[in-house]
Structures are given as structure tokens and as C-alpha cells.
């Protein structure tokens, strides 16, 4: 199934900004992070369909997953 992955800030470095990926049924957000070599504790925001999700969220066909690092300075 096809999903769209959008990366932000540091996560774009040596990766991509937006990419479509063909992933297996049952793929979770954690699986995607692992495949992209993104360390879970580095993640600040995970959005699927515009809402924060946890890493155990199972993705479905057509999902757009946006991944942001922790950016919390002021």
C-alpha cells in the first residue's frame, strides 16, 4: 500500500522532504521510523491525517505521515 512521508527540520538532512513509499499492510509508524533510521526519542511530533499519533499506530493506504523533531526552544 502507498503512504506519503513528510519530513521536517533535521530529519530532512540526508533523507528527503516528501516521499511516497510502498509499505506492507500492518506497517506501523514505528516501522517507518526504523526504516528511516530515526531515533524515536528524537521525535517531537508525529501526525497522521493531521493529528498527533503514537508510534504503534498502524498505517493504512493513503495515509500521510509527517515527522518532526523535538523543537522546543524559545
Amino acid at each position, binding site marked *: 500500500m502507498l503512504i506519503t512521508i513528510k519530513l521536517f527540520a533535521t530529519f530532512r538532512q540526508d533523507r528527503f522532504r516528501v516521499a511516497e513509499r510502498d509499505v506492507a499492510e500492518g506497517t506501523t509508524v514505528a516501522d517507518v521510523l526504523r526504516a528511516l533510521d530515526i531515533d524515536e526519542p528524537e521525535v517531537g511530533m508525529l501526525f497522521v491525517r493531521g*493529528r498527533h499519533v503514537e508510534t504503534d499506530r498502524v498505517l493504512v493506504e493513503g495515509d500521510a505521515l509527517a515527522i518532526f523533531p523535538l523543537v522546543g526552544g524559545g
Partner: protein
Amino acid sequence: MFSREETERYARHIVLRDVGGPGQQKLKAARVLVVGAGGLGSPALLYLAAAGIGTLGIVDDDVVSLSNLQRQVIHATADVGRPKVESAAAAIRGLNPHVEVRSHPVRLDEGNVGGIVEGWDVVVDGVDNFPTRFLLADACAARKVPLVTAGVQEFWGWLTVLKPWETGPDGMPNPGLHDLLRVPEEGRVATCAQVGILGVVPGVLGTLAATEVLKLILGLGEPLVRRMLNVDLLDMDFAVEPTEVEAIAGVPG
């Protein structure tokens, strides 16, 4: 009524379509609290003061240090060692003596946050850490005070407006901060002191935060409620992501 001096001072607002004299009166009547007089708070406070917000509150328990001055533009070299609330209040008075400043030289904690955010029309989150950010967001949500919240680091930033007690056109509640951000593990968050920040980054995000405050008070345009702005100043990419639930059959929210 505005004095002759105020009428001249705010002339570019008063002639501006959708602001005008009535809009300027709304700004004068408004009470805005800025938590953190640092990188984000500096431009937010300066622009809100210049715009003629009637009462500005400032919360910060820190003193100005030399390494702040690369981005915290409300403070000057002569202010090093001075409490930030004092330095910021002096800069505001110098810019616009019509603004009443309320200073809170304290660190927000569970005991004081409720009393501090009570009674403001809008609160701006310019804090530099996640625990305080969540504390502030919870207190504002409980008291139904709109919160303009932002974060910055290195070359990046984000900004959104939280009104979680309201529902959207789809009947779903607006997101709160817990719906948008993961609560980071203790000690896993790099600070600006560790990884650095390009000085203009909080300038951009803090100025955008002030813009959202003015829009909320004036009832203008579309504030970033149920939307989050993500800014990448290396790519010069400004992306607005929806932060609402898309109701799709069979897909859990």
C-alpha cells in the same frame, strides 16, 4: 478616545482596511500576557507594544546575559545582569508609553500558573522548555484563554494557536498541546544552549506569534487554530499542516 499623539502614532493602523479606529480601540482595550522575555518573547513584546496593546504582561525569572543578545532583541548590552522583566518593561515604555506593563519576575510552576494566566485575553508561549510549555498550555485550556504557542531551534520553528475548548465545523474538538506534541523523555531534549540557534529564527516565529495575537484580538483572517505552521529557514519553506481529525470511516482518530 485617542489623544492627538495616539492618533498620529497609530495612523497606519487607523487607515488600514479592517483595523481602523475601532480596531485600534480593541488593541488598546486588550490584555496580552507573554511568558518568556527571550528569543520569541522579545519580538512579540516589541511588536505588540508598538501596535498599541493596552496592557502587556511579562513573565520571566531570568536575568539578561551577554549570550542572550544575539537574538533577544528587546534587551540591550547595558541590561546584562538586569532581570529580563525589568529590561523588557523599560524597552516597552521607551517604545510606547501608552502601554501598561505588568511584570511577573517568577518561574511558572503548578502553584502560580493559574493565577498568572487568569484574566488575559491572549497568552503567548515564549518559554524555552517542554515541561513549562505543557504547564502553560494546560492552565490556559482550563481557563479558556487562547494560547499562541511556538518553538524554535537551530534553523527551524513551529507555531500554532490553541483553543481546545472549542469545536470545529466538523463537530470535533480543537486539538490541545497534548494532541500535537509528544511529551519528551527527561534529558532527551537538546536545548538552544547545546545545539545553537540562528538569531533571526525566534525573530521570525515571535513576529508571527504577535501577528496571530493581533488577528485574534481584531477578529481578522484565519488564525492558526487547527493548523500548525512549520518553518524551515534553511529551505525557506513555510508549511501549514492541518491539525484536525479527518473523519474517515474505519480509521481510528
